[in-house]
């Protein structure tokens, strides 16, 4: 019996290790280290969008709205009620997940073609408008400031580096849990609906219920990412719910590659670093986003991470065929054999 670590874990693990070491050497000032935090936060948001795109085969135009919503919830609790950010980190995903449950229930009840995309688009516009207009609660266009950072044993996680490692740890935990979720009964149910809904129903998968839950889970995850954002950058404003971030998360997923766990992590790193490099072109960001999306879809439709996996697979030779096969390949079977 050979202990098999899926190739994704090698690649992803190495990538993460590299990312974890980088700040000590390369990112020497506060501003640059803030970018690292951003990478991790975008990676979590990307992972959750990829859960909708890659695992469910659906699309949500409201993903940034859920992200911003999570950010507002946690910020608001801390500012108005003095509730600890640690509670906020739980309350934000709970609130976003609850709203996701409602939206999913509306959009996924019948067919599952464009309904979710359309309903989430509506939700996104609505949420953004509310954030902009409901001044007494949301602070209007300028949003909320002075959001407190979380503190640990009386010590505030304020420094870029500390927050980065804190968020990185969470990211690792999330990737780990997502990978295990795939081989759970729930994960397999979701996958089977994505693969073939009629067949999934025929063998007893409650398709609507599973999809509503899966969507709600993705919303909770992105809400959590939003809360991480709010307590580090210490402000929230209506932009967080808008198209800018929707584009960003989409690029993160598509550049990295859908249906892979490490893809969005890599996509986030690429996106943040490249857009930093292009900072002078701020004004044209929508043009650039558009062009990037177009190029990715045209030239690397599977994304960077799966492409690397393919190359790695080829280098290792043909005997490792699952390298370029389905990313969700079931290594559980091997584990099960080990357990025997």
């Amino acid at each position, binding site marked *: 019996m050979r202990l098999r670590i899926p190739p994704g874990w090698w690649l992803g693990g190495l990538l993460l290790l590299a990312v974890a070491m980088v700040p000590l050497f390369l990112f020497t000032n506060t501003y640059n280290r803030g970018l690292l935090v951003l990478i991790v936060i975008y990676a979590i948001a990307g992972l959750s969008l990829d859960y909708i795109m890659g695992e469910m085969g659906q699309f949500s135009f409201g993903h940034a709205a859920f992200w911003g919503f999570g950010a507002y919830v946690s910020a608001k609790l801390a500012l108005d009620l003095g509730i600890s950010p640690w509670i906020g980190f739980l309350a934000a995903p709970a609130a976003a997940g609850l709203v996701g449950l409602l939206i999913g229930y509306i959009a996924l009840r019948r067919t599952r073609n464009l309904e979710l995309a359309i309903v989430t688009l509506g939700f996104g516009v609505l949420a953004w408008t509310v954030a902009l207009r409901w001044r007494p609660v949301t602070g209007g266009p300028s949003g909320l400031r002075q959001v407190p950072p979380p503190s640990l044993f009386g010590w505030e996680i304020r420094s870029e580096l500390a927050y980065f490692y804190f968020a990185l740890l969470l990211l690792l935990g999330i990737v780990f849990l997502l990978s295990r979720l795939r081989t759970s009964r729930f994960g397999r149910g979701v996958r089977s609906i994505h693969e073939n809904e009629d067949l999934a129903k025929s063998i007893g998968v409650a398709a609507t219920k599973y999809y509503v839950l899966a969507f709600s889970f993705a919303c909770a995850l992105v809400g959590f990412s939003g809360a991480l954002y709010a307590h580090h950058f210490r402000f929230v404003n209506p932009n967080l719910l808008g198209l800018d971030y929707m584009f960003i998360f989409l690029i993160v997923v598509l550049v990295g590659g859908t249906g892979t766990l490490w893809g969005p992590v890599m996509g986030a790193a690429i996106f943040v670093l490249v857009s930093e490099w292009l900072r002078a072109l701020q004004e044209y960001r929508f043009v650039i986003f558009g062009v990037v999306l177009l190029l990715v879809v045209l030239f690397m439709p599977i994304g960077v991470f799966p492409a690397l996996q393919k190359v790695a697979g080829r280098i290792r030779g043909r005997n490792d065929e699952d390298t370029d096969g389905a990313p969700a390949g079931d290594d559980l079977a091997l*584990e099960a054999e080990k357990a025997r």
Partner: protein
Amino acid sequence: MPILETSGLTRMFGGLSAVDELDLSVEEGEIRGLIGPNGSGKTTALNLITGYIKPTRGMVRYRGSEVTGEQPHDLARLGLVRTFQITTLFENLTVRDNVLHGSHLNNPTSLVGALTRSKRFRKQSAEIEDRVRELLAFVGLEERIEAVARDLSAGEHRYLEIAIALAAKPRMLLLDEPATGLNPEEAAYLMNLIRTLRSQGVTVLLVEHNMRLITNICTRITVLNFGAKIAEGTPEEIVGDPDVITAYLGKRRGA
């Protein structure tokens, strides 16, 4: 008591009755044939029984309780499982994963167990895995366990479909033209599988076009034409029935 019963089951599509006042009664342990010319309503009847479409009127009873209009997945939970006329698999998954995903109803693992990979979870997973192998051996696909479903031959597709359905542990299995696309040997192999299933206590409703196949294997046969039942009886009775002959010949002449 019959395991499955329909009464007055009707489904209209526009002005056309795809299934017309169908009374059907299948006893436990039967292999019931459901035949009829193209477009006579066989698939529609199956869709109505398994909850894929709602009847315009009429009723379905399964094991003594009314299940009209219930969701397919709820019916599957009760042991009523169907296959599809057009080959329907998880095409991008391996043969093993197809049956593994088909084992949804017989997967006792908990979410926490899966996330922590508890000892209990691994044990339960190993049991599911054993059952998957058993099922694949039963349909003769154990050699193809690592193959991706879409790469299988037409015959293998059909066997895999059956293995997936069996993973749900059906009490009653409804098969929609499972022999389509098979050569005579493959079809014979499939019919043998179905016979074995029956001996294991599974009731079968078999939709089939091919008269020869179905008269060989079925205990009783129901014949549909234009959505309505025109004959019912043992294979011998059906083969000699003038209405049935007319329906089939009439169709052929019209085609």
